[in-house]
């Protein structure tokens, strides 16, 4: 099985480069049970050889795929991004199977499509610090779009110590480097996870899980109960709930430790399930 990373090719864009630089560890984590070799040139495969191609903004690469799919017939696509579900569904029909991020109902009934979590960005992740020994009670690192994120900061502002780094746009000027980012994450007890720009998922959730934080997530339409079944994460409707939740858990070191352990166990088990699903689909 060969694998080709195409997000950075055929369409120079912020997200194409972002995924090339930041999504590799997550995707390779999911492909853990698949034996593959990464190729740098598509001429290295023949017509019927199975290939995993990893891409983003594919709707802007229609001509590339038109040509490519004439030459190669055994292609699995890992489609990153597409928060708004812009892709024409018929595009997926030409692939053996598609794994797409940002779960949307409209794609859930397509037989050759499996939704996967958007995952975490590549970086030096460390989850070793025991939850009670972490420096910050909560953190928020990212942009303030609208009412939810503003309220998150407002309601939690008096819970000390905390770490807030607000950026004007995703990956913008004062964003922390991956090293700095994960240093804060791995020294934080609770990561506050608001809704994404359009979609309930944000990278922050998976970065918090990998860093051993306890995520407190906004859960519109119970999305995370459906998409991440049986997860023991803390879900809220309004950020005014956060003060009480954090204070009560901080008062009970055993309870917080048990919760942290159950979340980590669930997340590790859930990743195994996703890996198994991928292996079943890419049955080579």
């Amino acid at each position: 099985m060969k694998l080709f990373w195409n997000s950075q090719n055929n369409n120079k864009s912020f997200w194409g480069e972002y995924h090339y630089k930041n999504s590799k560890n997550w995707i390779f984590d999911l492909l853990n049970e698949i034996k593959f070799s990464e190729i740098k040139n598509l001429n290295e495969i023949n017509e019927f050889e199975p290939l995993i191609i990893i891409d983003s903004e594919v709707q802007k690469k229609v001509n590339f795929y038109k040509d490519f799919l004439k030459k190669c017939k055994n292609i699995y696509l890992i489609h990153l991004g597409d928060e708004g579900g812009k892709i024409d569904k018929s595009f997926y029909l030409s692939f053996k199977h598609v794994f797409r991020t940002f779960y949307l109902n409209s794609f859930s009934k397509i037989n050759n499509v499996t939704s996967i979590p958007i995952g975490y960005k590549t970086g030096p992740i460390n989850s070793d610090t025991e939850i009670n020994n972490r420096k910050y009670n909560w953190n928020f690192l990212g942009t303030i779009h609208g009412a939810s994120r503003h309220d998150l900061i407002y309601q939690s502002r008096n819970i000390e110590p905390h770490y807030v780094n607000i950026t004007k746009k995703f990956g913008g000027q004062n964003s922390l480097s991956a090293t700095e980012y994960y240093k804060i994450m791995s020294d934080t007890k609770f990561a506050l996870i608001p809704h994404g720009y359009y979609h309930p998922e944000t990278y922050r959730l998976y970065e918090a899980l990998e860093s051993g934080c306890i995520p407190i997530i906004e859960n519109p339409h119970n999305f995370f109960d459906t998409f991440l079944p049986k997860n023991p994460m803390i879900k809220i409707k309004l950020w005014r709930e956060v003060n009480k939740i954090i204070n009560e858990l901080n008062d009970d070191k055993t309870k917080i430790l048990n919760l942290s352990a159950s979340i980590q166990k669930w997340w590790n088990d859930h990743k195994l399930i996703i890996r198994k699903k991928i292996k079943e689909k890419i049955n080579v």
Partner: protein
Amino acid sequence: MFNIKEFEIIYNFIKENNKTEANQLLISFRAKFALHPDYLFLMSEYLFLEDRIYQAIDTLHTSLLIDYDDMFLLKNNFEKSNIKLIDKKFELFRKLFKITNNLELLKDAEDSNNEQKRLFFFNKLQELMPGIGFNKKP
């Protein structure tokens, strides 16, 4: 209260807690009026009814944003919401910030009893929630 007659019907359905009828009418007017300031007020009221509080605030904020954008109103042949409806918008802001327990914005919304204070409140929202915007293409 509304610049478009049919919106009064939607408003009445919302006030009667008739979500199904209100939603059907909102859908039917979406293509033409999705960015009309009165329509956005109704959407916000509907989201409030659905208990989607943050989306209701963002939508109401967008409604004000359009009220203050004369160019956009002109281009789309929309009218700014009338004073009675703007009073209703601030009433809704008060309800929403009371639910979220955002005492600072609740107080600001309560104090916004004249045009100058309302502009100040709007500018504050813009500063605190800078991601609220809309696609200006008509």
